[in-house]
């Protein structure tokens, strides 16, 4: 009766746990899943598989990338993620029971909880929990069986899951006892041999600490990479030594140790509010949920250019920029688009803004640099798609086809890639080339952006963004977003000489019945020489003056 009760209780706890995990990732923080997905591009091809398994830990990478591709739909990604957590908990429990560890069920949640914690660190990749599950699986399958096959198993396991092979080795150690000690040397030897012979392009730190466990190579988070690898064997070992231990002292001490050995900067960034909001904006931009961006911005401000870029883009897309720009935090002259920053995230709103404005070359450049800033060398589905679109608009069809061919090997981008390929297909004859141009020019988005593109070819100058927006607008007065951005940039720069002309353009071409509230406020502020209490524009000007 007690056993049955315990069994149902355990199952109930597991179900609750899985549901909680699912709800967290599907509802609370789906944008982190989206961020993970946009930093990779899983391909269904043998070349991609071979590429992945050609480094230590590659099979775990491959499986994790397979899972992460489904983060494209966060609800689906959350289901799979919950499955990974459940697998980790179940395997932990099986391994602990196998090694006669007391409080096995309770301890089986250690690794999933630590995974949940470290997943809040945006550098964390799914390779780590997948590798951990594989190590646990192998440890469970090996149980207390003979040690001899481990001479082969350990090197193979190192190559497939990376340095988390140590979890396997230590779990086998606590199962087999001190006679298993030589296999500690086998594990170390496997890593060193692989480093020397098979990993010429990787430093020793990555051969020992993991190549793809984190987004940034050479980044080392000891609490995660060492702490999570050894905690379960440590707990089992401590229960073997202190047989009467009832209170999970070791677990508490170990978890505390993991937390303390994690760099304070890393700790501070885990689930921090600013990162949360910025990733949410990134996710909302990607899904074109402009009203949601504005609604969130009304509740929480992050004083960064990224935040300003996102909010201004959303305001422009909903026709509110002229009225409400300065009702939200403006970071300065870079509040509409940022000067390019060499990382894999900051330029996203600017890239999207450039694209919608019709500054296709600039969008292509930002998209390219964002993609090349993924330090693991991976491609991004979203960025590859955007690059292909820019190339189509620019008439660079052969390079576009390269990118489309890549996307055709995916699940979620394939349909779009096939459609795009049909759009740009043409033979060598004049007639079919002309047909192609007609199709693209008639396309709702690409045709419009072709007409919006800058007619003159000049060198981009970030310091003259206002003039570039002005030229863009004058090239096609139907480009309302260019008009909005032109006036907005002039206001951000405080360029009074251009302001009058800009406002005249807004009056003539903006389609407004009366002057937008934001422009009116700016004009009043200028007339009052900045002394206009309650004026959002006056607040902005004062802040810029103080800076």
């Amino acid at each position, binding site marked *: 009766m007690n056993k049955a009760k315990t069994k149902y209780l355990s199952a109930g706890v597991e179900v609750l746990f899985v549901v909680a995990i699912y709800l967290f990732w599907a509802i609370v923080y789906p944008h982190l899943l989206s961020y993970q997905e946009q930093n990779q591009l899983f391909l269904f091809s043998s*070349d991609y598989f071979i590429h992945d398994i050609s480094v230590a830990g590659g099979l775990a990478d491959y499986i994790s990338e397979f899972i992460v591709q489904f983060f494209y739909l966060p609800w689906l990604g959350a289901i799979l993620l919950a499955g990974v957590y459940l697998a980790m908990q179940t395997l932990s429990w099986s391994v602990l029971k196998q090694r006669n560890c007391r409080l096995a069920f309770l301890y089986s949640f250690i690794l999933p909880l630590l995974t949940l914690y470290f997943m809040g660190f945006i550098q964390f990749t799914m390779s780590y929990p997948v590798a951990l599950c594989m190590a646990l699986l192998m440890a469970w399958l090996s149980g207390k069986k003979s040690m001899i096959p481990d001479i082969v198993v350990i090197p193979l396991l190192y190559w497939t899951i990376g340095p988390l092979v140590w979890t396997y080795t230590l779990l086998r150690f606590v199962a087999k006892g001190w006679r298993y000690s030589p296999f500690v040397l086998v594990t170390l030897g496997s890593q060193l041999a692989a*480093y*020397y012979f098979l990993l*010429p*392009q*990787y*430093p*020793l730190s*990555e051969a020992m600490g993991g*190549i793809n466990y984190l987004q*940034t*190579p*050479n980044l080392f988070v000891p609490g995660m990479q060492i702490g999570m690898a050894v905690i379960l064997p440590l707990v089992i070992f401590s229960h073997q030594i202190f047989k009467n231990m009832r209170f999970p002292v070791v677990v508490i001490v170990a978890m505390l140790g993991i937390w303390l050995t994690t760099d304070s900067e890393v700790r501070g960034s885990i689930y921090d509010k600013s990162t949360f909001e910025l990733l949410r904006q990134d996710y909302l931009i990607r899904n074109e949920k402009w009203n949601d961006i504005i609604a969130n911005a009304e509740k929480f401000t992050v004083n960064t250019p990224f935040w300003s870029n996102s909010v201004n883009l959303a305001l422009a897309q909903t026709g509110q920029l002229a009225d409400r720009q300065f009702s939200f935090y403006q970071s300065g002259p870079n509040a509409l688009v940022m000067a*390019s920053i*060499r990382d894999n995230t900051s330029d996203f709103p600017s890239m999207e803004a450039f694209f919608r404005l019709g*500054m*296709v*070359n*600039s969008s*292509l*450049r930002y998209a*390219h*640099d964002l*993609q*090349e*800033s993924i*330090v693991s*060398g991976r*491609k991004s589905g979203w960025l590859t798609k955007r690059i292909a679109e820019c190339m189509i608009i*620019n*008439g*660079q069809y*052969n*390079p576009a*086809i*390269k990118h489309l*061919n*890549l996307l055709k090997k995916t699940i979620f981008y394939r349909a779009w890639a096939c459609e795009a*390929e049909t759009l740009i297909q043409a033979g060598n004859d004049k007639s079919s080339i002309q047909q192609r141009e007609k199709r693209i020019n008639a396309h709702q988005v690409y045709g419009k952006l072709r007409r919006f*593109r*800058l*007619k*003159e*070819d*000049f*060198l*981009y*100058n970030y310091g003259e963004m206002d003039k*570039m927006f002005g030229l863009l607008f004058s090239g096609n007065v139907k480009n309302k977003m260019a008009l909005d951005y032109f006036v907005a940039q002039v206001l951000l720069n405080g360029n009074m000489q251009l302001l009058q002309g800009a406002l005249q353009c807004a009056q003539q071409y903006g389609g407004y019945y009366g002057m937008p509230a934001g422009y009116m406020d700016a004009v009043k502020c200028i007339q009052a020489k900045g002394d206009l209490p309650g004026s959002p524009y006056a607040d902005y000007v004062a802040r810029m003056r103080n800076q």
Partner: protein
Amino acid sequence: MFRRYITYIFFAVLFAACTSAPEDAVKVNKTPKIYPDYVDVTIPVDIAPMDFCIGSSTDDEPREMYVMAKGSKGGEIIGKGEYADFDIDEWHELTRQNRGGDIIFTVYAESAPSSSKWIQYKDFRMHVSNYKLDDYGVTYRRIPPGYEVGGNIGIYQRDIHSFDETAMLTESAVVGQCFNCHTPNRTDPRQFTAQVRGEGGGTLIQINGKQEWIDTKTDSTKAAGSYAYWHPDGRYVAYAANSVHQSFFTGTKKPIEVYHKFSNIIVYDTRTHELLLDPALETPGSLEIFPAFSADGKTLYYSTSDACDVPREYLKVKCSVCAIGFDAKTGKFGSKVDTLLNGKKDNMSYVQVRPSYDGRWMIYVRCSRSNFPIVQPDADLWIMDMKTHQVREMKEINSRRTESYHNWSSNSRWLVFSSKRDDGMYTKLYFTCIGNDGRGTKPFLLPQRNPRKYYMEMFDAYNVPDFTKTKVEFDSHEAIRKIKDQKRTTVKIR
């Protein structure tokens, strides 16, 4: 017994069916459109198999092929499948047998993907040069073509007699850093230099396997050295100490303009760790760049242009090619500077001179402006006869798109160069044979197994290609350690 014979006959027929040319193929009187375009190219003996596909580089569905390659002096091999897949050993033997002759290709292909009907095309030829290409292969940098972020850069070496490519140094080794300008001494990798930029960067000099990392920045030299060129005696290396920048276009014709805000030429003495400077090579108001020593080492060639307010005046950058004497014994430069090609007068820009190692020719790049020609669509290769100093455009190897960055093979008979002729964006490597008259043969693209698939899935541009006489022995682990420890040999000014 009878059953066994029937089985044998069955398999014999089956085997014959698999290896014989398609019957009932309809003959057409035109050569096939193949990718890469290897029709009438001239190849060296023992080059990697010149595999090719039917159709263009972007065809989605492949057409099955059956290709017979027959030597004019003997030998015949078959290649078949989605691409003409020749066995390496058989191919090498065929080229050896037909040195100085031709290989004639008879191509059968499906009339359409998965069709049962076959076409037999008119035969085409590849010519096998009398001039050998014994160098092991080529080295190059692979880099995503583009903008400000280098991305997944890597320096590779490729055996041109097979399809083997190995990485020498990749981004996984030196995360977030840029590296390039790997330069052997006249294809001999026992002397080798390269540059790593960014945190912990430095200039690598490797001599007989020993790595030395130096910092060429001093009070008198404004930047680290790049665009290296070795003196033939292997003691000196010439660099350009410069700063390179990019600007970007808003229209659609060109994505990028690259320029230098300053550039001077420095020569490094690897024996004494000294930098040799000369006022003629660091003229105020001028930029000196892309040095190259003559074959006998007595002359240093370089490009020079007036300093302009770049990027605003990017159209005014016009480089001339100059020459200054150099005495390797004393490490001193001559007092006179000769102008070989006057960019200002011609309203053109001449850069990247490369004298052949036998001293007979000099090939350089000509474009309408700029001292960074790989981004100029009108960049073309020109050749100077070093006996007569006559110049001409190498129309036989140029295309409508960029040709740039070229280097000679060790016997000065073959040239490798970068070209964007394929799609205008992704630079690829081409080879041509230079005859006694200075004319190049029709260039051929670096061969690959299944070339259409390979190049379709290649998202890197190839640049800075150079021949390497032997396989480069490079300890990347040691390079990683040295980059990390940041210990650099300090250089002095002589």
